[in-house]
């Protein structure tokens, strides 16, 4: 029996049939090759990631992992946020609390004054950008500009003190009685002025004869706060400590140490903000791991006001104040807002 090619009606062994069969085998092979190429191209396209959405795919050793330090043990957080004031500034620099718990914020080219409930009360306009400020008991506002201080008394003419020179970077002002203390981070020194703008003494310079190692300032962030009994507290950020000086510049004591752990001060230079509490304790602010913490009068860690979770990553330049009710007032430079923290009640 002869096998027939039914479709074409000719014997299957006819040369034309075998030629056609050979062609269709080639066609199948070509089709398979094309399909494989298309599939491979699809896989390549799917696996390639021109938009970078899949990440770098670098190994773990290339990942900077500081997650562990960005989490705060909730048991250590003794404060909660109870209020927030939007400053309306593009840039905020410094905060202070004045009489009647008025909140003074230095930002852009002005000082904004809010009452304790956050109501915008008034604005003091300035010719340049303020860096920091302090409010005296008589209501005079001492504004630290980049290289000098300007005094804005409530009902008198403003005064502009002499420039501290090209290198000066004024980062903090504190007032106590007839003394005005000005931290000049650019020159690594704190100046003690009288209220007329005359320099009385220089504090924090290295002096071997007095056993003073000196302020170590890698980034302009020296802060000052006046404590009880004629003590000036000065942050020495490059040495991760807070130092107590007499008003004449003698170093009396210090506390603080470097550590990423919650008890210490993190990074290359901290703390960057300081408040002296009426009970002798302190509130500190840090950069790197932005955190606000409370220490007792011996410099022992007590609790956390706000940990890194409360701030945007990369927050630098927190400033602090405290009001008569013990509320911690935090100036958040990323949120451009004043954030008010109060102690939690026992059951909170």
């Amino acid at each position, binding site marked *: 029996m002869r096998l027939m090619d039914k479709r074409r009606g000719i014997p299957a062994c006819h040369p034309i049939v075998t030629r056609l069969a050979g062609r269709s085998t080639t066609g199948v092979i070509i089709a398979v090759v094309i399909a494989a190429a298309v599939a491979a191209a699809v896989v390549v396209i799917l696996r390639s990631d021109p938009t*970078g959405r899949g990440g770098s*795919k670098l190994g773990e050793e290339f990942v*900077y992992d500081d997650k562990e330090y960005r989490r705060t043990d909730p048991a250590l957080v003794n404060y909660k946020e109870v209020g927030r004031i939007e400053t309306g500034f593009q840039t905020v620099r410094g905060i202070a609390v004045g009489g009647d718990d008025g909140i003074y914020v230095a930002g852009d080219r002005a000082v904004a004054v809010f009452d304790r409930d956050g109501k915008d009360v008034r604005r003091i306009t300035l010719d340049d950008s303020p860096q920091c400020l302090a409010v005296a008991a008589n209501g005079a506002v001492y504004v630290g500009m980049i290289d000098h201080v300007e005094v804005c008394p409530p009902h008198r003419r403003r005064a502009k003190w002499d420039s501290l020179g090209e290198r000066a970077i004024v980062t903090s002002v504190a007032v106590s009685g007839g003394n005005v203390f000005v931290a000049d981070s650019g020159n690594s020194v704190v100046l003690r002025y009288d209220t007329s703008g005359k320099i009385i003494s220089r504090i924090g310079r290295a002096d071997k004869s007095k056993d003073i190692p000196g302020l170590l300032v*890698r*980034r302009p962030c020296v802060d000052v706060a006046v404590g009880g009994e004629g003590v000036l507290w000065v942050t020495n950020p490059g040495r991760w400590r807070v130092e107590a000086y007499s008003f004449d510049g003698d170093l009396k004591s210090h506390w603080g140490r470097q550590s990423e752990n919650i008890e210490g001060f993190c990074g*290359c*230079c901290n703390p960057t903000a300081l408040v002296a509490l009426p009970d002798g304790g302190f509130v500190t602010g840090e950069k*790197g791991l932005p955190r606000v913490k409370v220490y007792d009068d011996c410099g022992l860690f007590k609790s956390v006001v706000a940990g890194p979770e409360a701030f945007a990553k990369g927050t630098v330049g927190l400033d602090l104040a405290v009001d008569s009710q013990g509320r911690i007032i935090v100036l958040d430079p990323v949120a451009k807002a004043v954030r008010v923290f109060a102690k939690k009640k026992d059951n909170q």
Partner: protein
Amino acid sequence: MSEQEKQDGLTRREFIRNGARGAMLVGLGAAAGGLIARSRSGDTVWQIDPDKCIACGNCATYCVLKPSAVKCVHAFGVCGYCELCFGFFDLQPAGIDAGAENQLCPTGAIRRRFVEEPYYEYKIDERLCIGCGKCVEGCSTFGNSALFLQVRHDRCLNCNECAIAAACPADAFRRVPAERPYLLKGDKH
């Protein structure tokens, strides 16, 4: 600090600060000089805006060159010369010395030299740097942001479509004039 590190040290920090900053600019300047010679006026090249870069790691793996044309750069004028440098050391180093186990850079590309108590100078070995940005993140998180990434024009092919620019999540790549191909920290740009 080891005795060797002390002996290698210089005594005038200001000298190092100014001189080294000059050195960085001369180094990048030389590369820029070669680029200018190759480029016509009005030409542009790719560069990273260090203020936008979030050190995501993509610069190390998306460049068509292996290793990447992106390298870490150190702005000496911005650096704090910290003994405890967070671009150089692991977050919790076992010791504050240059032992490999204490170093942050996975390729060992950062060199440190004692300047004077308590200051150190840091330099990048570009043959080892792959542009991963790990040190950049450490320095910007805890330090002065003196370390940052730049496309190095002595090797970049100036692709029409830069593969990293397309993959950059921070939109940090931009075209800059070939005559001024670097965007340096500490300089206004």
